[in-house]
């Protein structure tokens, strides 16, 4: 991949926080941390939260395979139908497929998302997973932790801690999803 050195910002006043190379380093480090914490990778399943969490889970799975030869399960979990704030949306969020391991009892589910903010998405994802079965444990990997938690939730793997003001926004762009080079941006209202 030849990343454009100056990708177009997603908002006029957005500043670049992570470029392609920095995201690559974050993902490789997280992949190594997952390998370290999960000696039996055949029992690990990386489950992305749509939409960019799914791409990130796919990338982490590929890196783990590259580093160890193991091929953990890679899937996704819909959170739209498990959120408690449908009434706060103007347009209903998309409901996505859910792909989880058939048998979860002995599995470590590693939830993957691009940005950790209030923690409500993670809660919805855990609720959704528990309606399918009872995994042995759930871990949580995010590319950016921007703070402002509204629930007692913490990530096990963090690409970058990025303190933000509440009304600032983080935009994550993945080439495979957004057709612009991998990049993370912050914008003010």
């Amino acid at each position, binding site marked *: 991949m030849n990343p454009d050195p100056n990708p177009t910002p997603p*908002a006029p006043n957005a500043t670049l926080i992570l470029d392609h190379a920095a995201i690559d380093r974050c993902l490789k480090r997280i992949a190594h941390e997952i390998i370290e914490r999960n000696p039996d990778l055949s029992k690990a399943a990386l489950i992305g939260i749509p939409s960019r969490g799914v791409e990130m889970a796919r990338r982490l799975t590929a890196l783990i395979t590259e580093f160890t030869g193991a091929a953990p399960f890679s899937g996704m979990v819909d959170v739209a139908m498990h959120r408690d704030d*449908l009434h*706060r949306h103007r*347009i*209903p969020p998309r409901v996505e497929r859910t792909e989880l391991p058939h048998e979860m009892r002995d599995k470590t589910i590693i939830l993957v*998302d691009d940005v950790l903010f209030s923690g409500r998405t993670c809660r919805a994802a855990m609720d959704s997973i528990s309606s399918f079965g009872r995994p042995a444990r759930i871990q949580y990997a995010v590319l950016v932790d921007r703070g402002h938690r509204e629930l007692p939730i913490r990530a096990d793997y963090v690409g970058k801690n990025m303190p933000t003001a509440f009304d600032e926004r983080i935009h994550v762009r993945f080439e495979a999803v957004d057709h612009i080079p991998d990049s993370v941006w912050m914008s003010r209202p």
Partner: protein
Amino acid sequence: MISPMSATPSIPASPPQRADTGWTHKDLTSIEALTADEIKSILDTASAFKTVGVREVKKVPALRGKTLVNLFVEPSTRTRISFELAAFRLSADVVNISAATSSLTKGETLKDTAKNLEALHADIIVLRHSSAGASQFLAERLDASVINGGDGAHEHPTQALLDVYTILEKKGRIAGLHVAIIGDILFSRVARSNIHALLKLGARVTLVGPRTLVPREFEKMGVAVTHDLDSVLPDADVVNLLRIQHERQRKEYFPSLSEYTAFFGLTQQRAELLKPDALIMHPGPINRGIEIDSDLADSARSVILDQVTNGLAVRMAVLYLCAGSRNG
């Protein structure tokens, strides 16, 4: 990802993939008023909801705390139960009101009944009514979401949606397919909604039945009309057989049920004319031996029970989308 930013729904520039459904209607009163994209959005949402039915826990909290009222002024069992189960699976609370038990029999107007339901904070009203336009009438007057569960001979939108969903699921596409709708078209809201949905999604539609029940007038909708079933079957990808409503004494429209079967029933012999992969559909309840041969109804080509299963997923999608769009 949209969720952490849900309080501020402004979308950053150039996201090629939508994070929302694009659905902006609080009501579903007809297929005619929908765009092809809106129909596709419902079908997409339905395919995600279909998986809820095979989970260990067949319930999601999307509509927790919402109240749905099934206001069925005209009798129905399958549509009402399908909406009821869809609401249960979405964690909504459900109240059923049928004509016999409601104050409508005491002379209360439909609007007053509905206003009373709204005063009790009903969020969604599913209305089945014998008058065309009844659900549109309520939708314009209530803040609650109004879903048309069948209004007279006008439309039955969720039936058409589950029919196209089933075709899409089995055939992988709608555009370019040839769908024959057979039987009592004149009085059929199912036929009208199906015609709108199929044409918007690019299918070709032929209506087949006795002259009295399938007037040429329908050609104005953009469909073909014929009274010769045998000429249509070899080219049809889907045959949708509508129920002959013999309990309504349609004697004036055809001489006898056996004559209807002789000309328009899907018999074993006629089924030989069908393409091997043609789908046989029926909105139910079926009259075995009248519209369709009993064995054919149970054959591998029949997707009649798939339609029932998919109806649940489609209604979950409709409830989710309409209830989620009330906040504009």
